[in-house]
Each structure stands twice: as structure tokens, then as C-alpha cells.
């Protein structure tokens, strides 16, 4: 693919003090989820009087669409804003903030397009804090191809998101998921906004439980082919897939630890237990070995907490292993079937799936308060949750539409939002960690 845009001149210079920037409009994504920012995207303007761009409408729509992806943003229409929200220009000095302030707009976006000797057009995108009357962030691009418009929109949206919340994992961190079709399982990559969908490889057999390494260079997964279980590793640098036959009859739910090792559930004795592997894919030590099924390990970003699913009390429940003192704590007491737990990178929230009389639903357990909250409500089954690296978004798969597709919600239960995958079904999604 053609290398990203030309990026550009990057961040537009601001005529603001750093102190003013520090007080810029922000949203606390770990809050109760009631805070909303009213956003208005002004219609595109030409940067020079004689310039006309055929991309105006497409870019305008793309930017509006990107900002519809977040529950903490409410997008206002031109009918909601005085004088239809028209602006004289796209820079700070051109904006009459009063009418936006009176129309209760918190965040104003301007779009400017002009001629460029280096490409099809120069694009300038800005976000303003209306109350402070300051520039929150800005980006400029030289467009080489109309196909780059979506990339322009998402780079800008990521910058705004980062300014507002401090994170941009939503746009920056790709997701992998499994699509299934007639005996062939395929691993795909996509971003949460549906951008960049691509197939990584096919497997004639069953492929499940993909999980990224913390350095984003490898993906580990479990595979069943020819009546045998394998641990699979996709090297994203060499694009090679390796299959390792591990001891025992079962090899499921592999994950990378923050230290780069692999933890996996193997059935070496009577029941599946959780083991840590060494770099040569040999069993190094048992992490959890107990009567009952012990599966689905998942670590926080420091690597001192591990959640897992265990049937040691008769039915599957969620447990937490403190890796420092080796103490195991039961997390779930409600419901008879709690599985597929993941823990937020900061180790505070445990997100899991519970089988209710109406199907599987996603729940969040706050380890600080001990409180539990349901964040999805069907219909159908909502399963296989996965928390984003910022700890705010929760990916899951659901058959609410009649077939399994990918969705995301937030730890506050907003949405959910469908992740477009061009008609593919979607299972066991896994979000990548922040690039280091």
C-alpha cells in the first residue's frame, strides 16, 4: 500500500500558551459515562478564494462519521447552531466563538482545503475549545490521492481523541479476529472504525483465541487441525506462521505475558491447568494447577495480576491470581456460568461474559469497589470481551443481528457500536497494546 500520506506539516502552530493548552477541554474516560461534549463540524471552506475541491463533501462526511464513534461526543447539526454554524475562515482569528458558545457547542471543528504544488490539495483540520476560545489541536496534510481521505480523517480524529481523553488506542491499535467459513478459519486485522481490514492467513481447521504480544510483533493463537491441538504463533515481522505441538491433549487460550512469555492452558493431567512456557515452547512452570478446568489466563500490564476461569467449585467462575504472593481470589459469585475474563491494563477492572437466562452478557467487576455492572444487554449472545489498552473500550462478539459480528462498547456500557468488517462474521477479537 502506498505509504501514508504525506503527513505533513504536522501540527499547526498555535498562538497559545502552554498553560492555556493545559486547561483545554478534556474528558475523563474513567468517569461515570455521563459527561458529554457537544461537537460541531463546520462545513469545509476553501483556503484560497479561487480553489474548488471535489473532495469537500467526502472529507466533511468522513470527519463527521469518525466523531460519531464515541459515546462522549454529541454531534450537533447546522440547525442546532446559530446562523447554521457558518465560519468565515478556518483559523482561530476567523472564528466568532460567541454564536457557538450560545449554541452550547463545546468543540468546533473546521476544515480547510487549498491548492498544493506537491499534491492534489492541502488540507487543514482544526479543533477549537469554544469555551476557552483556544485551538485544541490541528493537523495539515498534502493529499496525494482521494483514497487517503479516510486516513486524513482518522489521523485528525485520533489527535482530537488524544487531546480530549489522553488516549488514542481506538485509532492506533489494530484488532485481530477470526472469521469462519466452511471449515476454513481466517485471521483478520482491522481497526475499530473498520479501517484497514486485511486477512493475515487461513487455516483449514479451527483457529481461536488470538492474542497480541505486548510489543505487537507476534500473535499467539490455538489451532486444531487433523484431530490435534497446536499452539500457533504468527510472526508479524517475517509473516510466518509456526505451529507447535505441546504436551497433552489440549492447548487453549494462549496469551503473552507483559514479559514476553506465553501462558497457556494445557491438559497434562486430569484437567486443563495454566502453564507458563519458556522461549522454546517448553513448559516452564505451572501457574494454576487445581482440580477442575483452569483456562483463559489474562494479565494486567504490569504482570502482577492474572485473571482466569476455573470450574473448581463445580461451574465456571472468574478468579484472580496475585502473582506476587500466589494468592487466588474468587471474583464472581453471581451466576452459574462466568467465563472469558480479561483485566484492564491498570489491573482495576475485570470484564467477563456471564450466561444469563437471556443469553451471554458482558459484565465489569471493579476490584477497587467490589461492585459489578452489566454493560451489554443483547439480544442474542454477547461474548469474548477484550479491553482496549486505555481501559475504556470493550470489544466483544455478538449474534444480536442473527450472526456473530464484532462490536465495541465502553466500560460504562455505552453503545454498542458495530465494527464494519465488510460482511465477514467475527469471533474472538483481540485488541493490540500501545506501540512502544
Amino acid at each position: 500500500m502506498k505509504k501514508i500520506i504525506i503527513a505533513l506539516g504536522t501540527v499547526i502552530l498555535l498562538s497559545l500558551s502552554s498553560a492555556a493548552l493545559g486547561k483545554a477541554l478534556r474528558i475523563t474516560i474513567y468517569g461515570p459515562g455521563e459527561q458529554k461534549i457537544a461537537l460541531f463540524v463546520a462545513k469545509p471552506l476553501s483556503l484560497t478564494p479561487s480553489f474548488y475541491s471535489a473532495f469537500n463533501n467526502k472529507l466533511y462526511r468522513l470527519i463527521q462519521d469518525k466523531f460519531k464513534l464515541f459515546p462522549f461526543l454529541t454531534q450537533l447539526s447546522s440547525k442546532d447552531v446559530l446562523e447554521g454554524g457558518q465560519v468565515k475562515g478556518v483559523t482561530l482569528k476567523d472564528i466568532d466563538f460567541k454564536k457557538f458558545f450560545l449554541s452550547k457547542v463545546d468543540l468546533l471543528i473546521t476544515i480547510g482545503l487549498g491548492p498544493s504544488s506537491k499534491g492534489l490539495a492541502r488540507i487543514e483540520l482544526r479543533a477549537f475549545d469554544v469555551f476557552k476560545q483556544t485551538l485544541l489541536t490541528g493537523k495539515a496534510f498534502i493529499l496525494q490521492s482521494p483514497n487517503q481521505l479516510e486516513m486524513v480523517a482518522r489521523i485528525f480524529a485520533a489527535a482530537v481523541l488524544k487531546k480530549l481523553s489522553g488516549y488514542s488506542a481506538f485509532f492506533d491499535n489494530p484488532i485481530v479476529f477470526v472469521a469462519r467459513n466452511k471449515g476454513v478459519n481466517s485471521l483478520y486485522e482491522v481497526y475499530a472504525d473498520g479501517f484497514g481490514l486485511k486477512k493475515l492467513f487461513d487455516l483449514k481447521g479451527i483457529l481461536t483465541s488470538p492474542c497480541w504480544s505486548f510489543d505487537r510483533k507476534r500473535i499467539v493463537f490455538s489451532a486444531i487441525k487433523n484431530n490435534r491441538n497446536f499452539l500457533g504463533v504468527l510472526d508479524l515481522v517475517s509473516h510466518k506462521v509456526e505451529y507447535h505441538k505441546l504436551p497433552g491433549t489440549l492447548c487453549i487460550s494462549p496469551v503473552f505475558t507483559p514479559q514476553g512469555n506465553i501462558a497457556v492452558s494445557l491438559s497434562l493431567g486430569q484437567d486443563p491447568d495454566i502453564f507458563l512456557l519458556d522461549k522454546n515452547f517448553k513448559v516452564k512452570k505451572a501457574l494454576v494447577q487445581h482440580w477442575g478446568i483452569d483456562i483463559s489466563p489474562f494479565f494486567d500490564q504490569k504482570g502482577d495480576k492474572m485473571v482466569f476461569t476455573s470450574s473448581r467449585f463445580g461451574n465456571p467462575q472468574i478468579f484472580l491470581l496475585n502473582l506476587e504472593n500466589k494468592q487466588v481470589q474468587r471474583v464472581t459469585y453471581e451466576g452459574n456460568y462466568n467465563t472469558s475474563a480479561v483485566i484492564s491494563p491498570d489491573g482495576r477492572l475485570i470484564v467477563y461474559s456471564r450466561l444469563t437466562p437471556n443469553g451471554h452478557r458482558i459484565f465489569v467487576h471493579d476490584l477497587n469497589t467490589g461492585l459489578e455492572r452489566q454493560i451489554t444487554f443483547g439480544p442474542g449472545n454477547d461474548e469474548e470481551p477484550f479491553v482496549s489498552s486505555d481501559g475504556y473500550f470493550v470489544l466483544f462478539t455478538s449474534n444480536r443481528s442473527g450472526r456473530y459480528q464484532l462490536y465495541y462498547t465502553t466500560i460504562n456500557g455505552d453503545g454498542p457500536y458495530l465494527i464494519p468488517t465488510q460482511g465477514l462474521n467475527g469471533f474472538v477479537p483481540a485488541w493490540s497494546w500501545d506501540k512502544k
Partner: protein
Amino acid sequence: MVRFLGLSIVILSLIFSASCAKKKVIPPTETGSAVSGQGPAGQEQMGQSQAEAQGEESNQGQGLTAEELEAQKRLQAQKEQEEIKAIIGKRIHFDFDSFALKPEAKDILKEKAKVLLAHPKIKIVIEGHCDERGTEEYNLALGEKRAKAAYEFLILLGVDANRMQIVSYGEERPLDPRHCEEAWAKNRRDEFKIISE
């Protein structure tokens, strides 16, 4: 003299034709007279070598032709194979979130054990399956427990562990794709497949 010669030729030709005609008659066999006496008239017109060959083989086949006997053997072997496959292939079913063998499952496994003990060359794979209601990873673990439950019971009945392989497919290969209790009950199962004989 001419008369004598003519009579001699007639007598010799009669003798010759009589002896040829006799050779065409299929001799009775030791095991039965079906071929010569009760067989269809057409059989009496067979050539000597055919008749002899048939006569020899008829000694072993209660009056069946060699081909019929071979076909019968094949049929019997096929029938036996089918019976073995039917017994080995009989599924066992489980309750929701359970890998406990029910009494009827144990009876089915006992039948399988008899067959496996009588045919020591047969190797099988035991597949554990689950209904769609559980989650993927847990169902893979549960499916393995289901396969293992049957595997261990067969070992207790004397079947060599090396003749059995287990695998779990979790909820990935439902027998009945419907989303109802009837379908789920069918899908919570162990399947047994012969991988070598």
C-alpha cells in the same frame, strides 16, 4: 467288406459321440448334487474345465459358485465392518456443563469395548463436543473432559490407551445447527471415529 466297414464307422462314431456327450455331464460333487443334479439345465452344457473348476470350489462353498462364495465373504466382511462401525460410531450424550457419563453412555461404551477388544487393530479418535451456549474456550476444555471421560472408561474396560486419541472441538461442529434445547442436547456429545483398522 464295404458293409462291414460302413457298420464299423457307424459304431465308432456312436461310441465317440457317446463318450463326448458323457464328458459334458458335470459330475456330482461330494458336498451336494446341486450343480449336477439340481442345477439349471444350462449348466449341463458347460465345458469340462469350467465344470471341473466349479466342482472343486463347490467342495468348500456348500454348493455356491466361487464368485458367489467370494461375494458372500465380502458381504459378510462388509456387514461385520458396518456393525463395527455402527457400534464404534454410536454417540454418547451429556448434560449441560457436565462431562459425567450417564448410565446409557456407559452401556454404549461397554459395547464399544467388546468390539475394540475383539479387533485389536482398530484405533479410534474420540471427539468431545459441546452445545453453543457456552463460551468458546470453556467449551473446548469441557469437550476435552467429555472425550477424556469416555477414553478413561474404555481404558477401565481393558482397551489399550495407545489405540485411542482424543480431541475437543468445543462448540465448533454442531450436529444440529438449530438454537433450541433439542438441538443442544444432540450437540453435547462424544463422537467416535475409526482412524485405522
